[in-house]
């Protein structure tokens, strides 16, 4: 059987992510899922935008496309419609997918293109130095919210669902097994699958908010003890700038799934049926 490690471009490793970065854990889970499904990734395309999370596609021995900031979904849409038989996975971050690329996210969800979008949510712009993101929770400190964030944050999963995504799920770097399960189901789903993955920026977000680094930061995710939910609950803001011991409870697992015609089916694309599910 193929292993996750065999799907890496070894000549590119080690990757550029910081020590203890949650993105690496998510990438690890993603490759384990792909290793279960494929002997090689000839028929898999990974399309990414700009940012730390988007960089990971370069390390995977697949058809990999590192695009412009926020626009990965648009490239992926074109590619998928041109090659409907490919399994196309979009790797994006919260700034990439919800800030600069938010418009593309809602439209890809609305069209129900048969893509799987993995949004790595680290609540900050990591690559540019830890600035305020559209997902940063209120009161959190970033390099551009020195007195604590005053803006409300997006609930990415709720947004994707409202926009029409036919599969919406949330996972965590801290629970790689749940993440694997969710990713597998997302890939199996025909239509636009959106998976938000909570993963922490150890260098900026963790440090700025006294959440610690490495495993300390990772373990803060364990406070979300509600394992699997079918509801999109509000994220109660339980953190205080004083302690930062408690992180908000986030429903994990598959949050929404329905069957509706994919964009490819609506267009009657030949070749689409070749994609095995």
């Amino acid at each position, binding site marked *: 059987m193929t292993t996750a490690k065999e799907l890496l471009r070894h000549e590119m490793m080690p990757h550029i*992510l910081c*020590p203890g970065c949650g993105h690496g854990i998510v990438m690890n889970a993603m490759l384990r899922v792909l290793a279960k499904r494929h002997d090689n990734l000839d028929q898999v395309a990974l399309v990414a935008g700009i940012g730390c999370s988007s960089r990971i596609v370069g390390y995977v021995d697949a058809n990999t496309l590192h695009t412009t900031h926020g626009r990965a979904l648009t490239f992926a849409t074109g590619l998928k419609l041109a090659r409907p038989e490919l399994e196309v996975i979009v790797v994006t971050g919260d700034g990439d997918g919800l800030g600069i690329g938010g418009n593309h996210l809602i439209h890809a969800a609305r069209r129900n293109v048969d893509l799987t979008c993995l949004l790595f949510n680290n609540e900050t712009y990591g690559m540019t130095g830890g600035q305020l993101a559209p997902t940063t929770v209120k009161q959190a400190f970033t390099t551009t919210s020195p007195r604590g964030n005053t803006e409300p944050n997006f609930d990415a999963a709720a947004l994707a669902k409202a926009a029409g995504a036919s599969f919406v799920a949330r996972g965590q770097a801290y629970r790689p097994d749940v993440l694997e399960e969710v990713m597998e189901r997302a890939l199996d789903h025909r239509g636009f699958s959106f998976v938000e993955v909570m993963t922490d920026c150890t260098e900026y977000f963790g440090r700025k908010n006294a959440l610690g680094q490495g495993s300390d930061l990772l373990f803060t995710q364990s406070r979300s003890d509600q394992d699997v939910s079918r509801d999109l609950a509000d994220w109660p803001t339980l953190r205080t700038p004083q302690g930062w011991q408690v992180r908000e409870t986030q429903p994990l697992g598959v949050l929404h799934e329905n069957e509706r015609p994919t964009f490819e089916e609506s267009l009657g694309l030949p070749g689409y049926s070749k994609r095995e599910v």
Partner: protein
Amino acid sequence: MAPRVPKQGNVVVAGVGGQGVVLAGNIIADICLSHGLDVKKAEVHGMSQRGGSVSAQVRFGPEVHNVVVEQGSLQYVLGFEWAEALRWMPFLAPDGIVFASSERIVPPAAQRNRVGGDVSYPLEFLEHPGLRAVDAESLAKEAGNPKTAGVVLLGALSTELGFPVESWRDALARWVPKKALDANLRAFELGRAWKQAAPPKDLRPQRTLPAQFSLKLEEAWCKGCGICVDVCPERIWHLDDLEVARAATPERCTGCRLCEKLCPDFAIDVVQLQEIDLLTLTGGGA
């Protein structure tokens, strides 16, 4: 010589969710009842959906009040899973017998909650004179249904308890689904045959358990984040002076793969070595 029906005794069936532990306990209790004995049965289950512990304690005799087996008085353990069998060793009477399936199902949740790194306890128990390890999994497959591994152990127990063998067969017929009965009866006979062929005095385990997993580190990829150090339940990893992960006690690895899965840098490989043969360890087997 006709089998002698026991006057009193106790049996613990231990395993994990889905192995039929409760059912096996019911069968034993049913046989006791059918021979006019008083029976009390206690069950522990609940966290059993994903490989969590399940156990059934059966106490029987002319009159039984206490449902719980006390330490030092346990006569028989049927271990459907290796580690679950070992859990009950402290309860054994000096001449108590453990029939333990060599199958090992590592419960992820249990791995997370374990602390410490003290692996000497299973080694101690390997030396227990009453330990009988059986490859019940293979025998069950031979019987035609891998789910009958527990019944293999019931077969072994039937040679010890002294109830007539027909009582066991009748009880199986009452409790096991009809379509699976044939396989269960075959498994039962295979268990009996195994027990009768294996002379207990030869069951001498080796001193040490060889490593079942090897830990490989891609040194150049390790960035020294220390996640493996903190997540390993066995405390195998540490960071050296150059902040590179090192496995100080790789032989303790239980294969939970937390380090491998939570390593952001793909630096750790947990490689399963050839499946360890507990039968050779304990010197048992037909």
